[in-house]
């Protein structure tokens, strides 16, 4: 008897598997960063358009790897950083050109739009529009680490066991700047770049015992800074400001050798199924009030024209506090990454990770 019931439930579950699994409402598969699709905006979007947003949270490397494996399928919209698009596109052909006529470009800050268009030009066609921007710098707990100034404090004996950063390329580049070099200038010269990176790698290996952990995602870092496990970290400005709202001691600091500026974008995967929904989402999220809501929550700057007026005073205050005018001029914006460099960096990061 019980077996019969089990059997029946089994078969009902198949039936459900097919009906619910396949035939739900229109969906938008979004490949993005954590926090880029806040729950309330997703709900608002669904109410407005009837489209359900299914977000997968990831980072630049995994985004590329995933799209490469699926050859640009499985997702309707991706959000890579603008510097990681053109070389990847040339090699793996995972995106499709973006049709700017379908984007309400009036909503986008035009200088940023132009910059992104230029940087993502492949075969004469732009492949992305900007979504948000921010910088990487230092997040510091002033109570325990008052004198932190620059990236090389990440290798400072004084803060042993209380340091955290990502084992990713921005850290390499930041430390190269801190050494007084300009890694961006060496993008064209693979050998010189490699030599510089090895030097940085060596410094990171030497400083390894000072590191608490290599954080892998924003939430993890937030947590260890809140709990006091980490006092000096290389992180995004938004993370620092978020923490500042909770604890005045912690704040984002634009390092002396310059914060690293990035722009995250919207790009269409080559085999996106629901392109209409993708454009709808782009236009929706860049609408000033929505972009402002995003910025208020995640503290990152937005590419939305006019959103700045709608953001909280605190958010503007954050920016003014961390970025005096000379710091703004000193922001190092990432140029597009040539293909070769990633392998060089990967190997060096492996070395750092494996070192004892």
């Amino acid at each position: 008897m019980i077996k019969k019931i089990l059997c029946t439930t089994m078969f009902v579950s198949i039936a459900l598997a097919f009906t619910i699994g396949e035939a739900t409402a229109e969906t938008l598969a979004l490949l993005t960063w954590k926090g880029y699709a806040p729950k309330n905006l997703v709900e608002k979007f669904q109410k407005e358009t009837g489209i359900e947003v299914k977000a997968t949270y990831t980072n630049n490397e995994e985004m590329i790897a995933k799209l490469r494996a699926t050859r640009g399928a499985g997702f309707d919209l991706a959000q890579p950083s603008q510097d990681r698009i053109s070389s990847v596109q040339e090699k793996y052909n995972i995106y499709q050109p973006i049709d700017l006529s379908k984007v309400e470009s009036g909503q986008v800050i035009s200088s940023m739009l132009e910059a992104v268009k230029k940087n993502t030009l492949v075969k004469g066609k732009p492949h992305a529009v900007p979504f948000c921007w921010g910088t990487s710098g230092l997040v510091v707990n002033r109570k325990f680490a008052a004198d932190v100034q620059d990236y090389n404090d990440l290798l400072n004996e004084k803060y042993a066991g209380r340091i955290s950063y990502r084992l990713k390329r921005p850290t390499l580049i930041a430390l190269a700047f801190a050494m007084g070099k300009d890694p961006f200038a060496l993008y064209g010269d693979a050998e010189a770049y490699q030599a510089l990176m090895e030097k940085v790698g060596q410094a990171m290996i030497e400083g390894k015992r000072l590191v608490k952990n290599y954080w892998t995602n924003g939430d993890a870092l937030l947590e260890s800074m809140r709990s006091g496990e980490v006092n000096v970290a290389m992180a995004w400005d938004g993370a620092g400001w978020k923490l500042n709202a909770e604890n005045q001691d912690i704040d984002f600091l634009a390092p002396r050798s310059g914060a690293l500026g990035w722009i995250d974008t919207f790009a269409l995967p080559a085999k996106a199924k629901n392109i209409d929904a993708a454009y709808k989402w782009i236009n929706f999220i860049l609408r000033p009030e929505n972009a402002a809501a995003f910025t208020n929550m995640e503290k990152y700057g937005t590419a939305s024209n006019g959103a700045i007026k709608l953001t909280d005073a605190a958010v503007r205050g954050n920016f003014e506090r961390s970025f005096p005018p000379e710091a703004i001029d000193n922001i190092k914006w990432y140029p597009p990454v040539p293909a070769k460099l990633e392998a060089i960096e990967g190997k060096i990061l492996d070395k750092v990770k494996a070192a004892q």
Partner: protein
Amino acid sequence: MIRSLPYSKTYGLSFKLYIILYFTFLFAPLLVTCVLAFNDSQFPSLPWKGFTFEWFTGNLPERVGIFHDQINLDSIWVSVRVAFFVTLLSVSVGTCGAFLFEQEDFRFKPVLYFLMLAPLVIPGVILGISILMFSTVLGIHFEETWKLDVGLFRPGFWLVVLGQFSFIATLVTLVVSARLRKFDRTLEEAALNLGANRFEVIWYITLKFLRPAILGSAAVAYLMSFENFNTTLFLVGSEATLPINLYLQVRDGSTPVINAISFLLIVGTSLAALANLYFSRKETQ
């Protein structure tokens, strides 16, 4: 010594202590996970800030309980569907395999048997990448020669199913084979003698005999699929299974929602295990 022999008090006590320690070791992480699912705190750690159900039922922007957490709910549903198809596939192919290796004779049987065992020796990660690469090669080939875009050949739901199936089927084959080996073949002969053909024999006699093994291996297959990580990691597309999804969250730094999911998993699987035990005990009685 063993229970039929006299042994000293110290021996008995120290052994008991060891076992208690062992079980503490076994259950401590699970227990802590479960308890902290009810902690009224933003982080899965002590101190205890009071009892709450919010990590299950909450629906505030700061605190989304599991019952309202669409991403986690979706991934649970994906896992359920994947596990269902993996079970279906591996049980049917595994049973065929058991019949093939126990009851049929053909050339190259030892070679094929060895191949069937191979997935036991292949690390799950390797299985994942080799299937990913092979499907990519096929996919590119299909696209370039026939302009066909076959969804199966890229990471996604069905590739996850196939990847998990590729090693779970071995397990089913082994379990069903073990039972089939105990089967008295004179029963088949008797049925043939009474006028049944080979398929009727298999359907009415052999499969009935194999039923406990098939059901048991189906349960194991389901669970293995449900918690598989290594193979799935490389094959997953836009629909993440629960372990993958949880991994991303744990790596990202976690909220007690993960504890709440873990709690549900622990309670659910414990109940399933107990039910399984109850039924198997009934069957043997």
